[in-house]
């Protein structure tokens, strides 16, 4: 993993694509009708690093993630993935190298756990033995019991569903993982458990991870780099230390402060 100083700023305008960038967005903007979800922005995500997009709801963090995996098309600007510009013609193939997990898991309720995880591998005509092997490896990695493979999503707990969703995202061994509030729908105990497991998995895999959350605690737990967003713009980008100690905007301080208060209140409740 590259060690980059916390206050390092990439000169993006001069060199839009760096070899170490897994994702690089230049002048990307998005509107929904009259609502501007993202103002033109430049941002890059470095290979092998875990970045966290954080901000209040409506700040554009999920939109950014959907643009990166091509679920939305930008109104302006370009997105490079692994040094290739994303376009409608190549996005389908490029997605094989991206794993996507959303808050509720997005599991297909009509398919069993095994079918959910292997749907894409079967579509690509993997051999049965390859599929079995990969499934077993992923089950071990995510600590998901093999005897639940034949269950359907409705028969699983929330935490189990998210593990299945993660396995599905990892099935094709993608270069990046894009996680949109993956723990957001879980109750606190399970959440803490899975948080810990997820971090271990990320460390083990050394993949590029982009995680969206609104929880500062979670962001600092996961992120080498934290990108704070507000109203479709990036407010500040850096480690948690930089954000706490050198806020570039009063909003950064307010946002962190608000989150801390919540933590304190939670802590006072037995």
């Amino acid at each position, binding site marked *: 993993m590259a060690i980059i100083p916390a206050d390092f700023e990439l000169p993006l305008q001069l060199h839009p694509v760096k070899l170490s960038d897994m994702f690089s967005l230049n002048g990307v903007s998005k509107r929904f009708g009259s609502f501007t979800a993202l103002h033109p922005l430049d941002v890059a995500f470095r290979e092998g690093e875990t970045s966290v997009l954080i901000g209040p709801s409506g700040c554009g963090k999920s939109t950014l993630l959907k643009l990166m995996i091509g679920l939305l098309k930008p109104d302006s600007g370009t997105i490079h993935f692994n040094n290739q510009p994303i376009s409608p013609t190549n996005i389908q*193939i490029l997605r094989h190298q991206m794993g996507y997990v959303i808050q509720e898991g997005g599991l297909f309720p009509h398919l069993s756990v095994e079918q959910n995880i292997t749907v*894409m591998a079967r579509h690509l005509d993997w051999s049965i033995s390859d599929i079995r092997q990969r499934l077993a490896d992923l089950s071990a990695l995510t600590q998901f019991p093999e005897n639940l493979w034949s269950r*359907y999503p409705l028969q699983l707990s929330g935490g189990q569903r998210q593990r299945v969703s993660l396995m599905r995202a990892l099935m094709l061994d993608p270069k990046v993982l894009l996680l949109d509030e993956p723990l957001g729908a879980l109750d606190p105990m399970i959440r803490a458990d899975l948080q810990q497991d997820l971090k271990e998995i990320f460390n083990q895999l050394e993949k590029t991870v982009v995680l969206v959350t609104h929880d500062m605690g979670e962001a600092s737990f996961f992120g080498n780099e934290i990108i704070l967003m507000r109203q479709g713009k990036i407010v500040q980008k850096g480690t948690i230390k930089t954000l706490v100690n050198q806020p570039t905007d009063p909003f950064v301080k307010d946002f962190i402060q608000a989150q801390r208060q919540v933590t304190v209140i939670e802590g006072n409740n037995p």
Partner: protein
Amino acid sequence: MSRHSLIRFCFVALAVPLFATRPTDDPIVVGSKKFTESVILGEIIMQTVQQTSFEAIHRRELGGTRVLWNALQGGDIHIYPEYTGTIRKEILAGVAMDSGMAALREALRTQGIGMLSSLGFNNTYALGMLTRTADTLHINKISDLKRFPDLVLGFTNEFMDRSDGWPGLKQVYQLPHTNVRGLDHDLAYRGLANGNIHVIDVYSTDAEIDYYQLKILEDDLMYFPEYQAVILYRLNLDSNAPEVISDLKMLLGTIDASAMSQLNSQVKLERKPESIVAAKWINETFGVTPTIEVKSRWQRIWQHTLEHLFLVTIALGAAILLALPLGIWSAYHTKTGQGILAVVGIIQTIPSLALLVFMIPLLGIGGLPAIFALFLYGLLPIVRNTYTGLKSIEPGIQESATALGLPWLSVLWKIDLPLASRAILAGIKTSAVICIGTATLGALIGAGGYGQPILTGIRLDNMGLILEGAIPAAVMALAVQGLFELSERWLVPRGLRLKRSD
């Protein structure tokens, strides 16, 4: 090729394999309207034609004047019984012509239709009294009523209102009566029988005339229009089947009003089948014995079941084939989709009877227009349920499928359609049940099915016959519903039928 005939050609081309079992040597098709007298006359005509070397079939109870006339012009039927007054006032309304049969015949000839002379009776409005009362008072003609201003007159509301009904009659005959009541026809007969009413309006061949022993008063000032019963036929029969026409001419002048009234009474009041009544009359009049096929109740139910299933299966199958793609398209293309839903919705609001009648000029009579109408009605539930089923899939699930890198067709096939399967199946089920119900109206345009006994039962006020169509139709609807519920187990994926465990 005009647009109509082009549409017609397309449907015929599609339907040819379905009707391929029809004999190549086309039989003479006799039509009749949906009232008893017309059916009896149609039956007499058909059995007469059968005495020739031609095969004949009778498409009974096809509907009203419009349906029969269009069918005759379109060649779906070749012969049917009509009334001169109806020809003059409805069929050729607006055509200027002299009075008299010759002018009428000439006007019809220009349309390719021939008309034979009167069968022997004039079925028009008439005034009737109990024979007893009339004889006591020596009343024979309408003018005689003037001498008895105290008589109570009971007329149907229609007769009271029509300008050629009571208002005109009163004026022409200078009738002084003030005690005139408007009431239902059946009540009028009862009022007559118990003496509360003395004079009523009737059709001159009503079955009840014989039953209640009515005297028909002579229209001595020729007030009521002529409704002579005549046979209309396609003029090409003159050259194609001259012996049919010459045999039919033997019928002319053979049925007088009281004979017709008796035939009507045998069917309506004695509940004998029209075919038997007609055969008996032919036998008594000409000394020949027509061979008629009388089917048992179970044979009839079986035949109607096959006809009904045929209509419903083809219509529903075609509806599914079109509605599924339309529903899928609507779900993914919101703008055109709203248009599609609106159009399909509007089709649903067309009254079914009107839709069936619209079909006749395009598709003729029989199974084809009925199937097409049923097909149109079958669209909405399937389109709408497919649309709603697909639209109500959580966006996260669809996005996850796309984000995996599945092409859209695989997303549709492996994810979206299975998830919407329950809704789609429910739509098809609704469509099937509607189809089974609406198909009973098909009998109105000669499509057969369970509607046939219902229609006849209503006409003859025969509850047994109505139930003979209504009960199997209900059973079929229930069976189909049950079948669909069973098929849910096969078609709806197991994961969607589970209850949430946590």
